[in-house]
């Protein structure tokens, strides 16, 4: 891993090392209490975008990797700051985070590690998010980096950490799923206890990917990693399952923002890593509207497919219909109407 400087290395040690046995640092959060507590923050954040429009920011840095194959920690932090400041229209790197979380919150960083090395959320990006969260007063132990399986996380560089006073890092397999089903529409699933009991805020950190069944997998589809039965949610191009999963109360109420790692993206053959169908977009995409972000991400993938002379996803028989479903009257998770999306593109 290419790390910026000594202080960042120290930070990494603090964050991503620790005992391999789950400790007792976790806290239980009654779900009702969390929802009530989180509402004012959510409203404040929503007020920062123009009425009726959802803002999506794409920040690119062609030199994100310098002359190496891995992304540079310092440049990732800078890219994240530019994207977040633009999204919230503020001047200081800490300001956006103050609109999302407050000291005392327990913040889950839902990464995507299913694609394995090469096509998973970059450790450097997650470190950068942890750094900013801690700068505004979130305690290290109140941050949990998580996904489905600890082993999958470990394989891509998120090493288990459960020690006191450290950023926590482990998969749902360590503490399991709720016994009770959470339901909406066609979905009936047991939710990760990391989502329901250990965190009251969720920051979504997906990847920009083609998906063999769903068409694309970006923000909303990453929520398949919070349920116990994602394999039951793939019929009919994952429609309406993706939208329904995002409607589950614990998912919807805790979601604050999506920070999509589009440093390496995939236009075909996803969601697993196939280098021949991947490209380096060297970008981050951020939005509080997961539907708008997914719509824009879909367009980026279509553009790349056209460059590679591949059929559109519609022509290939797998348009991501769940995006429109998520925007419909039964879901209202965001907008897929380009007229109602304010797209801001930044380049280094």
């Amino acid at each position, binding site marked *: 891993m290419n790390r910026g400087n000594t202080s960042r290395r120290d930070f990494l040690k603090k964050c991503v090392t620790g005992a391999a046995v789950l400790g007792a640092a976790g806290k239980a959060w009654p779900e009702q209490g969390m929802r009530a507590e989180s509402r004012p923050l959510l409203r404040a954040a929503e007020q920062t975008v123009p009425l009726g429009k959802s803002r999506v920011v794409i920040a690119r840095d062609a030199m994100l990797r310098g002359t190496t194959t891995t992304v540079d920690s310092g440049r990732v932090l800078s890219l994240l700051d530019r994207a977040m400041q633009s999204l919230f229209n503020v001047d200081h790197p800490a300001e956006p985070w103050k609109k999302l979380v407050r000291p005392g919150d327990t913040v889950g960083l839902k990464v995507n590690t*299913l694609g394995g090395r*090469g096509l998973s959320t970059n450790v450097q990006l997650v470190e950068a998010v942890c750094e900013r969260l801690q700068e505004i007063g979130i305690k290290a132990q109140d941050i949990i980096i998580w996904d489905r399986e600890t082993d999958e996380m470990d394989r891509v560089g998120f090493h288990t950490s459960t020690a006191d006073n450290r950023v926590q890092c482990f998969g749902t397999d360590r503490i399991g799923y709720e016994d009770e089903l959470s339901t909406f529409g066609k979905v009936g699933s047991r939710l990760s206890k990391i989502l329901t009991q250990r965190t009251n805020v969720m920051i979504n950190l997906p990847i920009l990917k083609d998906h*063999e069944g769903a068409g694309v*997998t970006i923000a909303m589809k990453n929520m398949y990693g919070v349920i116990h039965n994602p*394999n039951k949610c793939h019929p009919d191009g994952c429609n309406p399952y993706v939208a329904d999963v995002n409607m589950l109360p614990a998912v919807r109420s805790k979601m604050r923002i999506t920070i999509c790692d589009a440093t390496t993206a995939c236009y075909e053959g996803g969601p*697993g*890593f196939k*280098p*021949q169908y991947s490209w380096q977009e060297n970008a981050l995409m951020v939005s509080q509207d997961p539907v708008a972000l997914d719509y824009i991400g879909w367009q980026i993938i279509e553009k790349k497919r056209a460059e590679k002379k591949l059929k559109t996803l519609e022509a290939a028989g797998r348009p991501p219909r769940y995006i429109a479903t998520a925007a419909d009257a039964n879901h209202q998770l965001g907008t897929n109407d380009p007229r109602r999306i304010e797209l801001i593109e930044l380049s280094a």
Partner: protein
Amino acid sequence: MNQSRAWLTACAIALCLAVMAVAGCNRKPAASSSPFPASNQVAGWTKSGEIRTFEAADLWKYIDGEAERYLKAGVQRVATADYKFQNKVDAVVDIYTIGTADGAAKILDSEPAGDAKSVPLGDAARLYGQSLVFRKGPALVRIVAYQESAETPQAMLDLGQNIADRLSR
């Protein structure tokens, strides 16, 4: 009586030892039945992890989202292991056991060839800068390298050839 019984026992033991000795002389070194080469069985390659196996019913745990395509083709299981080439290139090898050769062909043919080089390996093969995919009988093998280098394609071919030979045994 006792003497003749002792003599018979001695003869039986001697016969057994002789049979065992002959069998031992004819025995070839046991060939590994695993299609995964051990470290240094292919020049430059070391196996850096244990083999993990996912049966068809659990395939989604390994390739959620792609599992349906393999299931439709009749996949039975996938075995996967990590490798390193000269401590410079990390790679993963996936060996899918499909029910039939047609099933393996169906999977390979469903993927766009793009800028692949066709190489003489197994029943059909495609070589890219960072990956090699080939099928041999009912097996589909996918090697993915995480770093690109001038040596990577040839190194993957060497590893792939060894795996193809093992699949023939």
